């Protein structure tokens, strides 16, 4: 018995598939279908784009047959199918919609192909059809070996910042995926911000995208991997971001002040949610200038890695919280020189060092609290726990990933400011290091 997962390579859309149906009166119909999509071991979904005979027939007589071809070996398979239902929203629909956008763009059909629904079929049987086979090229690498090595490396990470960097290093070194980033949701869950990236000229740490925007935003909203194998403007970030900024007026311009890292000529994109116990911790995103770089197997490997990353992150967070200790009452000597103004706008939490934008939101509020304590008490040592309890920071809820915000803040400082930095001093503890006098200017709402 041939299983659906063993013929997934036929379902990448590289070679058009055909589907045959029979009308209620028995008249056969055969047509090309843009996409046969792997759903699980027992199901596939066909893209429903136009009201046509195939659609009319399966509603009257659910039996169908599909012909799919392996784009590497030329192996051909006949699938016996039974129509079950049509999905017009949700994870499967969004996965197919994104993939179809890539296929449409690749075949010159942008604007013509539009997904109306994902027609889900039960696979009754798969038959390998006689024919010549082409010699298979050696695999790029063994994904299971890469996954195992990465898994061991992630298990050795002792703090969240290290874990995120190690994840992206593993993708590069074990999987040969050189362009990657990790984004985490803000407290309200309406945006995601970049906390780590690898392979780009500028890190883009702190850059934001709205939920639902591009493959990353859709993966976050639907909690499902989104994969595109060809260049398509439908999921490009630049335009969507500009349109949104324009629609919302200048108030939202801050979120575009840090450009999202990304390849201008990205041809393959994959975004995988990192979730634990149903809660979204982040989105792992990889891309390549090569077409069809990421396969179903790559997606499986990255989903497994993302799952492990989520679990390790969760464990680290629990450990950090339980080991919070009161900081030593260290007082820093004040540095000399002319004070640098640091402005904090309470309305959106945005912080400017001199005239340079640093950060906003909760990370901005955290930074302001640290500076306030530093200026008034010369305090430099802090704990995660006290930040969590501080009413001035207004963390959205107790489960909020404070650690991710501290990583964001410390990385932005490392990139943008020579005289302020954050160093970890232990689990759940850190120190603000100040090398020039600061004049904190707080601007109320």
């Amino acid at each position, binding site marked *: 018995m041939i299983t659906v997962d063993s013929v997934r390579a036929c379902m990448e859309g590289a*070679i*058009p598939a*055909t*589907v*045959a*149906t*029979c009308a209620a009166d*028995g*008249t*056969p*119909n*055969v*047509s*090309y279908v*843009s996409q046969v999509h792997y759903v699980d071991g027992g199901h596939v979904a066909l893209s429903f*784009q*136009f*009201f*046509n*005979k195939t659609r009319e027939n399966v509603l009257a*007589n659910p*039996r*169908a*047959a599909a*012909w799919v*071809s392996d*784009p590497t070996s*030329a192996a*051909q398979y*006949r699938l*016996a199918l039974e129509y079950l239902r049509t999905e017009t929203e949700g994870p499967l629909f969004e996965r197919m919609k994104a993939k179809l956008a890539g296929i449409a763009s690749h*075949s*010159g*059909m942008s604007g*013509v*192909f539009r997904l109306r629904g994902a027609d889900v079929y039960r696979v009754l049987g798969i038959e390998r*059809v*006689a*024919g*010549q*086979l*082409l010699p298979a090229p050696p695999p790029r690498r063994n994904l299971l070996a890469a996954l195992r090595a990465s898994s061991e490396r992630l298990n050795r990470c002792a703090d969240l910042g290290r874990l995120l960097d190690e994840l992206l290093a593993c993708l590069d070194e074990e999987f040969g995926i050189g362009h990657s980033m990790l984004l985490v949701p803000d407290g309200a869950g309406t945006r995601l911000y970049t906390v780590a990236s690898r392979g780009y000229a500028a890190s883009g740490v702190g850059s934001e995208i709205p939920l639902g925007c591009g493959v990353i935003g859709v993966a976050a909203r639907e909690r499902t991997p989104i994969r595109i194998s060809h260049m398509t403007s439908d999921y490009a970030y630049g335009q969507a971001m500009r349109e949104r900024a324009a629609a919302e007026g200048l108030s939202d311009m801050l979120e575009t002040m840090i450009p999202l890292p990304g390849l201008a000529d990205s041809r393959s994109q994959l975004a995988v949610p990192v979730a634990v116990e149903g809660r979204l911790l982040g989105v792992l995103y990889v891309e390549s200038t090569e077409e069809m770089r990421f396969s179903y197997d790559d997606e499986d490997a990255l989903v497994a890695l993302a799952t492990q990353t989520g679990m390790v992150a969760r464990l680290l967070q629990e450990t950090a919280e339980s080991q919070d200790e009161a900081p030593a009452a260290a007082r820093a000597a004040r540095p000399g020189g002319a004070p640098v103004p640091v402005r904090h706008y309470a309305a959106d939490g945005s912080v400017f060092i001199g005239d340079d934008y640093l950060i906003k939101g909760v990370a901005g509020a955290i930074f302001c609290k640290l500076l306030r304590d530093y200026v008034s008490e010369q305090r430099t040592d802090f704990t995660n726990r006290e930040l969590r309890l501080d009413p001035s920071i207004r963390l959205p809820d107790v489960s909020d990933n404070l650690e991710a915000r501290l990583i964001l803040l410390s990385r932005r400082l490392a990139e943008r400011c020579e005289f302020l930095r954050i160093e970890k001093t232990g689990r759940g503890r850190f120190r603000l290091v100040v090398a020039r006098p600061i004049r904190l200017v707080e601007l109320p709402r």
Partner: protein
Amino acid sequence: MTQPPLIDEELAAFLRGPLGINVASRAAGKVPVLVRCSGCRVSTDRRSVKLYLACSRAGPVIDAVRATRVAAAVFSLPSSHRTVQLKGIDARIGAAEEGDYEAVEHHIEAFARELAPLGYNADMARAMLWLERADLATLSFTPSAAFMQTPGPGAGAPLRAPA
């Protein structure tokens, strides 16, 4: 008075091109079956089409056509996406005649050349369509209905208003 053939000169010329061709029929229990074809030929009077099949791949279609005589074939030119479906109710399976195998060989090479600029390896087209001389069978029918199936909102429309 006899009707003019459903296939006009222009469509006949299209059908002689380097097309991807698939044919379906109906097996018992209204179960559809299909197979990829290795070429086709339009009769000189344009009243029938003959599709080339590999017996080793087309078993279920051959059985279904023998039982029900119905067939639906889809023809598509990869470079333009122009797609047409022809249907018939008098389909029959036949043995290869003189010149048929050469027509298959010609079709496979033409199809491989058509796909090359689209980024497909010529060996891929050859591997999917190739068949042994002894494996060749034909499926012929008189088109009784024709539909435009080029992707787009007009897909599925009858190619010609019924006379």
